[in-house]
């Protein structure tokens, strides 16, 4: 493996590859910074452009976008409480209070360093585990996937914190919304009212941007008008001193970083669970393990470290099922599969054999991308820090425009813009009434996978669901589900 990696470095370490990695990271950060865009939009737009690049440069470029976009989403979350990406919503919980306390750069530095830590950790895991994972994951079938997703739903209950009822209600609403569109098995229409725009279901982009970014902007606009939301005051006499992140402040979080990186890698390895789930699991785990959980949500560095390390750790780990099995871990990985296929490479178990040099060159590019990400991100912090000096009565209305453009670009559909407006309004009401938006989005993401797995299980086992308890992997996750339900239910009552 070491020899393969060294030869991968030899093939990957060219000026062209480094240039495209840098371009990808900058592009990813810019798309991540703009609420409503994000790395998925950037990758979707850029995949056709990679046709003109070599396979290594193309994948490195797209991976750079993915890495930059994941950490870039934290910047508007910290500065204006409008997460650029769904997973950055958790970062906003502690990042924005810190920015409001006059330490936006400190929050962004913590986010960047944690993000790079998570990236490096997951890339190493990817290199070590890609081949062995293929052998294990081949044993997963629909019952196992159904059990894993059911387990994930119970973890959503944990995300809802003490407001269990509202959290589960939001998740159930998300599952319901995900069922709108054509039936995944027999293609009959479900609640589409014969509107062609709904045949593919509600756009995730529109729902996520509407509920997470637009609703936050609306809430801030209304609060600012009412005078209840104080403007950010970043410039103080101690601004430079306040915004310095001391090495001991960072390294004192090593347990949180390691735990979150492990969570992010674990979530990334399981197809479909996604970055948002990792971010909130990392955050939740850090809060539960913390000696001062009450500080979470008030600007705790631990909260930022936990979220960013876990969501960035998904990026590399996502490629484990993508490369080993040809199963995309999330939307970004699905787009990467498209890029692989453009270059005549079919992801799957044989890829490690037939294109070993390419695979290890990509691994080498990913490791180099982390160092470039750290450099570019660190240099850019000063520039992103300028965002907070723009008055809210200018930046918030402009962000609404970015949301509109972000939803319109991928599909060229005004219908999706209308859907985003509707979810912006719904998100605003949910914020005010304490319903978890994150639970809604995660319910929406996991709903179709859960349904598909259940229906495949029913068809494959002639409606006999006892397979769910006779399969050892499925049984383990079901036991974990019951355990977590009991634990969270008990904690909630307590």
């Amino acid at each position, binding site marked *: 493996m070491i020899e393969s990696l060294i030869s991968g470095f030899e093939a990957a370490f060219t000026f062209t590859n480094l240039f495209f990695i840098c371009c990808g990271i900058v592009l990813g950060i810019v798309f991540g910074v703009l609420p409503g865009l994000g790395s998925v939009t950037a990758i979707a737009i850029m995949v056709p452009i990679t046709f003109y690049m070599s396979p290594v440069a193309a994948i490195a470029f797209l991976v750079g976008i993915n890495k930059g976009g994941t950490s870039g989403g934290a910047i508007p979350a910290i500065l204006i409480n409008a997460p650029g990406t769904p997973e950055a919503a958790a970062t906003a919980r502690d990042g924005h209070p810190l920015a409001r306390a006059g330490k936006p750069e400190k929050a962004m530095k913590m986010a960047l360093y944690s993000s790079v830590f998570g990236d490096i950790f997951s890339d190493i895991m990817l290199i070590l585990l890609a081949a062995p994972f293929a052998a294990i994951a081949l044993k997963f079938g629909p019952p196992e996937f159904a059990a894993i997703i059911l387990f994930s739903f119970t973890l959503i209950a944990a995300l809802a*914190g003490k407001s269990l009822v509202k959290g589960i*209600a939001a998740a159930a609403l998300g599952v*319901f919304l995900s069922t709108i569109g054509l039936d995944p098995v*027999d293609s009959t229409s479900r609640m589409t009212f014969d509107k062609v725009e709904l045949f593919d279901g509600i756009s995730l982009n529109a729902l996520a941007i509407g509920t997470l970014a637009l609703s936050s902007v609306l809430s801030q606009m209304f609060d600012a008008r009412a005078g209840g939301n104080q403007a950010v005051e970043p410039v103080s006499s101690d601004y430079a001193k306040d915004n310095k992140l001391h090495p001991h402040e960072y390294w004192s979080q090593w347990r949180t970083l390691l735990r979150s990186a492990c969570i992010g890698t674990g979530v990334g390895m399981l197809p479909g669970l996604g970055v948002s789930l990792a971010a909130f699991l990392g955050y939740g785990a850090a809060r539960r393990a913390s000696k001062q959980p009450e500080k979470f949500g008030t600007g705790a560095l631990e909260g930022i470290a936990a979220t960013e390390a876990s969501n960035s750790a998904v990026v590399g780990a996502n490629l484990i099922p993508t490369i080993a099995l040809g199963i995309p871990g999330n939307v970004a990985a699905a787009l990467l599969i498209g890029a692989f296929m453009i270059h005549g490479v079919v992801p799957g178990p044989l890829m490690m054999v037939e294109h070993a040099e390419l695979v290890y060159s990509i691994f080498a590019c990913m490791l180099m991308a982390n160092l470039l990400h750290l450099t570019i991100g660190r240099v850019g912090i000063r520039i992103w820090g300028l965002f907070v000096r723009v008055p809210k009565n200018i930046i918030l209305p402009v962000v609404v425009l970015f949301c509109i453009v972000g939803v*319109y670009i991928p599909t060229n559909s005004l219908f999706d813009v209308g859907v985003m407006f509707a979810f912006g309004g719904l998100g605003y009401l949910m914020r005010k009434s304490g319903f978890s938006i994150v639970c809604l989005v995660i319910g929406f993401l996991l709903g179709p996978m859960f349904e598909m797995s259940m229906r495949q299980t029913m068809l494959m086992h002639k409606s006999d669901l006892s397979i769910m308890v006779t399969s050892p992997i499925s049984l383990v996750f079901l036991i974990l589900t019951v355990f977590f339900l009991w634990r969270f239910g008990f904690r909630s009552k307590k």
Partner: protein
Amino acid sequence: MQATNLVAGVVLGIGAAGALFWLIPNYTAPPQSPLDLAPGFMPSVAMWVCLLLAALLIKSGLPFGRHDQVHADEEFGDEASGVGIATIANFGLWVATAVVLMLLMQTLGFLVAAISFLVAAMVYMRLQVYWLLATIAVGIPVALYWIIWFAFTIELP
């Protein structure tokens, strides 16, 4: 928050009941195979869960119910202040704005809609430097329009 829970429970309950007894039966097909789940199964399960939880919310919102006042701000902090008259008025304002914005984009295009929206929003947020307001309201939509066109060859509506 007690009143908010009551109202939220009622709205959620009505919505879930409407979906269960009208929307799902009328707008989903029966199962195509005896072994398969009905297409309406998963949305129905989700809505039954919502209906059950709506009942719990209504119960917690009643004067003799168990209150979750301290639980409400887990995710949003001070933002989860409850739904009052001001929130409903703001929501109504947003609905009206969204409808006008959509109509403008469909009829007059992105530029006119975006410029109108920016002017209205910045005036609403009490930006009183009029030269700055005019520059941003015109400059940013025009810049966005051309950047999107030149970078991605996508023409905004």
